């Protein structure tokens, strides 16, 4: 008889209603304050970053140029993190960039996850032909470099937010599809799936009702990892000029511009660099933490 199962969804014997809320609450409860606080900071920063670009009366915060006071150091002349090459406030530029990064991160992550689930389940559950076809598609996509796709899209529709999201999402899903397929291969042998088939439940419904739900822990962890990788991806593409264009703030853009002015002021390189590093580090660690809570048996590997 098993003694303990480190299953955060495991509740004491009481009537279980709204299981998802309790599970979420339990996750938060079992995480120490660092994770909760850090996630909140990122969330607030990201939302703020989006808001200042969307709300017209706030756009001045990161757009106002002041060609007299360019390259100010942090904590000077009323700008808490200094100014950039055009005198724009660095703090709000970074916040805006964070908003862009997280938006792209979440967007790519969700698309990857949905595509990965659909295709992974299709390959794993709908027959040998489906599996063979899926495997070929997954292998080709997996090997395809995102940068190449970004160049193609940049040439086709021009560099932009959309380009970045498409390029990253369309290459990213393959890794997750592989994981999903592996999980489905073992899930489909479980008795409750056999029972559902005998009950006459169509395969599509079984996929949605049994597979997706049981794959949620894996999915949640991968979402966090994907946000991290997408942030780096976006920064990289924008750094190369293939991603978002000015005046949309982007950490990669600030880096690439700052590179030219390194002799004058290091802050345009250091600040976004540090923010990127910390953010991605935190997200990766958060993913690990979630994985410890949700997948103690190590089925998920960080790429």
């Amino acid at each position, binding site marked *: 008889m098993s003694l303990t199962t480190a299953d955060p*969804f*495991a*509740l004491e*014997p*009481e*009537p*279980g*209603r709204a*299981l998802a809320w309790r599970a979420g609450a339990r996750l938060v409860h079992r995480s120490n304050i660092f994770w909760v606080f850090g996630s909140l900071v990122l969330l607030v920063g990201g939302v703020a970053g989006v808001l200042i670009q969307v709300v017209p009366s706030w756009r001045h915060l990161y757009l106002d140029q002041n060609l007299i006071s360019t390259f100010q150091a942090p904590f000077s002349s009323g700008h808490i993190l200094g100014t950039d090459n055009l005198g724009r406030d660095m703090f709000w530029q970074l916040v805006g960039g964070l908003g862009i990064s997280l938006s792209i991160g979440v967007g790519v992550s969700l698309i990857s996850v949905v595509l990965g689930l659909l295709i992974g389940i299709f390959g794993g559950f709908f027959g040998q032909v489906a599996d063979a076809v899926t495997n070929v598609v997954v292998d080709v996509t997996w090997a395809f470099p995102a940068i190449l796709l970004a160049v193609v899209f940049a040439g086709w529709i021009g560099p932009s937010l959309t380009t970045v999201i498409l390029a990253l999402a369309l290459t990213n899903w393959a890794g997750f599809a592989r994981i999903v397929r592996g999980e489905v291969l073992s899930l489909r042998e*479980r*008795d*409750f799936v*056999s*029972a*559902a*088939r*005998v*009950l*006459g*439940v169509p395969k599509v419904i079984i996929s949605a*009702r*049994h597979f997706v*739900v*049981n794959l949620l822990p894996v999915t949640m962890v991968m979402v966090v990892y994907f946000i991290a990788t997408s942030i780096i991806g976006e920064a990289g593409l924008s750094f190369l000029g293939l991603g978002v264009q000015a005046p949309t703030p982007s950490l990669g853009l600030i880096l690439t511009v700052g590179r030219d002015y390194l002799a004058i002021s290091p802050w345009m390189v250091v600040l976004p660099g540090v923010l990127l590093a910390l953010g991605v580090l935190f997200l990766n660690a958060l993913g690990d933490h979630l994985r410890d809570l949700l997948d103690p048996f190590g089925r998920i590997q960080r790429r």
Partner: protein
Amino acid sequence: MTTVAELERVTKIYRVRGQGVHHVAVDDVSFSVDAGETLGIVGESGSGKTTVARMLLRLTRPTSGRLTIKGIDIWAADRETRKQLPRAVQVVFQDPYASLDPRMSVGASISEGARRVFGRQQATRDLGRLLDIVGLPQRYRNLYPRELSGGQRQRVAIARALAMQPAVLVADEPVSALDVSMQGQVLNLLNDLRAELQLTCVFISHDLGIVRQFCERVLVMERGKVVEEGLPEEIFNSPAHPYTKSLIDALPRMSW
């Protein structure tokens, strides 16, 4: 008596690709089950009894042979006809910890199939009645499997099967994974249900003792073949096949 289920010369061979190795799981098995009858299939691991069950449930494809339930050739039937199968045959599996989706509530599990066939409202109404039939309190419908014991989960599995009002119930080692002190509860429940609902039952087990007490007719399987068939008492008192004899000899003694 009407024949409800029949296997004609059914065989299942597993081939390992490229190695020429093959394993005969079920070897030319034929038998039939009459309406209202409980047929026991006894065998140990590797006997093929579970494979027979899976072929009857349309989960594993036979290599050759015919399987019919209520006259329908289940493997040759077209899509439309196949839709009738969930109301013809249902299953209770061995492992109560694996046969229920841990993320589905008890009520949702029980009505999972019935909802599609009888409609959501009817299924919800039936849910209350089913919980009563299997002896579970009504409030259990909102609980999750992890909050139930093994015996209680088996009751849920039985309720789920019965929700479809099947003609045949296939029970694959339904109590083997339960504590001995609780096996009797589930067995007595099955006993009462089959009488009340006039179920035809295919009862698979490795325990000849249980099969003798529960089944009207017994098949003994060894390594894919049926080696003996007959009434439990006859088989017990005068086993024809040496394998049957060894099964009987190995039964635990409880009396001194």
